[in-house]
């Protein structure tokens, strides 16, 4: 945290943290006026919102469905299988993407060729970066997030289900009107947390998936900080961007927490 001050200074290695001259908000202004600003912010928001819309509901649906399974063994098996990808490292997941999506030998393109289509160079085209990113995110993390919802579902009072059964409610109606409201507080909390990390979009994965060819959609705030800061050694400038990102995140978190408190009586604290 102490280091945050360099965002407001013009850092140079000779004078160090506390000796470099103060420049106020210059670094922030420079970022906002830079030509990458719109692109980088736009990319980040695109992926973040797309990811939230697609990746957030999937584990909830999975948990609701798995919870309704009669057979304990099938339930357990499903859980284990669905969350196993969470234990594969990001590097390997991206590695799998590269081999399976390879334009010459990849599985996906073999399917496309089989059905008479033209092979697509997924990892090298800007328009494919977002879909591939989001789908692989769901693939890797949905099963693991599901576990939390399953834990919450275990604490839904079974008496409610029995009462509803007597009243002739179908399974779907019970899932919709008992299970779903039962886990709404957990959903709200996790949603707020997800919002708080919205702009931190799986930075490691974005960096790994980045190629020279898809930069126009894959450069997000964090990878930009990495490139500008560590590879080009513009420490103050990129620290300012990092700080800008943190502040935006915090603001989003506080806003949504406030909304949630007003509407659902749920809050992080």
């Amino acid at each position: 945290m102490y280091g945050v001050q360099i965002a407001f200074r013009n850092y140079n290695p000779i004078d160090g943290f506390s000796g470099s001259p103060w420049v106020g908000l210059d670094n922030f202004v420079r970022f906002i006026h830079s030509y990458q600003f719109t692109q980088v912010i736009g990319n980040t928001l695109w992926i973040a919102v797309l990811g939230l819309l697609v990746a957030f509901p999937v584990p909830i649906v999975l948990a609701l469905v798995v919870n309704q399974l009669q057979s304990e063994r099938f339930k357990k098996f499903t859980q284990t299988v669905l969350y196993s990808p969470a234990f594969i490292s990001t590097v390997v997941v991206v590695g799998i993407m590269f081999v399976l999506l390879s334009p010459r030998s990849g599985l996906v393109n073999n399917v496309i060729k089989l059905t008479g289509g033209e092979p697509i160079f997924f990892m090298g085209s800007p328009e494919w970066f977002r879909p591939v990113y989001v789908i692989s995110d769901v693939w890797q993390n949905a099963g693991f997030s599901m576990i939390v919802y399953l834990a919450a579902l275990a604490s839904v009072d079974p008496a409610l289900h029995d009462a509803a059964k007597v009243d002739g409610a179908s399974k779907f109606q019970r899932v919709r009107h008992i299970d779903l409201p039962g886990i709404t507080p957990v959903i709200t909390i996790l949603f707020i947390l997800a919002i708080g990390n919205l702009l931190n979009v799986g930075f490691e994965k974005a960096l790994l998936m980045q190629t020279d060819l898809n930069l126009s959609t894959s450069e997000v705030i964090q990878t930009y900080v990495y490139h500008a800061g560590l590879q080009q050694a513009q420490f103050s400038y990129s620290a300012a961007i990092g700080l800008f990102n943190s502040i935006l995140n915090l603001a989003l978190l506080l806003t949504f927490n406030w909304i949630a408190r007003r509407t659902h009586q749920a809050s992080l604290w």
Partner: protein
Amino acid sequence: MTTKTQTRLKTAAVPLVPGRPDRRRRPLRDKFADPVFNTVAIVVLLLAIAAVVYPLYFVLIASISDPNQIYEGNVWFFPQGITFEGYQRIFADARIWQGLGNTILYTVVGTAISVTAILCGAYALSRKDLPGRKIFMLVFVVTMFFDGGLITKYLVVRDLGMLNTMWAVVLPGAVGVWNLIIARAFFEQSIPDELREAAQIDGANDFTFFLKMVLPLSKSLIMLMIMIHVVANWNSFFDALIFLNDDSKYPLQLVLRNILIQSDITSTGTTGGDITSYAAAQRIAELTKYAMIVVSSLPLMIALPFMQKHFTKGALIGAVKN
């Protein structure tokens, strides 16, 4: 959580009075609603399972298939023209072995440091008589939502003289706040104050109590923490990427990244698939990639069934806290 499961068992045992079906209140479609729901549910889950398993299975069979068969799209469900050349190449590659050695070293040291620090810290924070407990907690929690960013972290590590050493990889992320909160919640729930008072009367000081009573009572938590950190350390690459610049110190994941991903970027250009010696070499390289994915993920995949119980429990502690 246990009380809830008990309620469930109890209520399930009570026989339901079957409600007399009332024709007006139950439209016809209700008769089919449940079977339809069940079928849809099972189809959805089977599709999900297939979507998770098939890519992994494909990588596995591709790693022992003849690369030419993969290129021609003949490999679908069974390996074709079995070859172990990919694996032979990997095991002959010194970088892989060195990376593996480094990963094991970082994993062991990193896990030991993290687990020790988290257990001690979380226990202290779980004690209601700790002065300034709320302030400590606040300081930790703030970092969950607000951090100084990559650059400041880098500069701090650099100024501490840890660049290009193992410590840069194992120390900065040693204490995750989320894990600290889980551990604290566990201590608060399972170590009653009365136990400590009793031990004090028997002459145990805080250290004896922690070592002889708290730790033995927290075996499941310790297992969970060890597993979380083994998995995290085994899979991490980013800290190594920014803090290490000496090839011989790279952990396995970074070596993998350089071979699996970086090499692809340079080679997957617009070159067509014409049969030259270059293309043949590339096919072998592809094969090695498949094999490498298998080798690097297999240890955790095999351990997964044994770890599952602990991870589910961790999610429960987290959910209770929520």
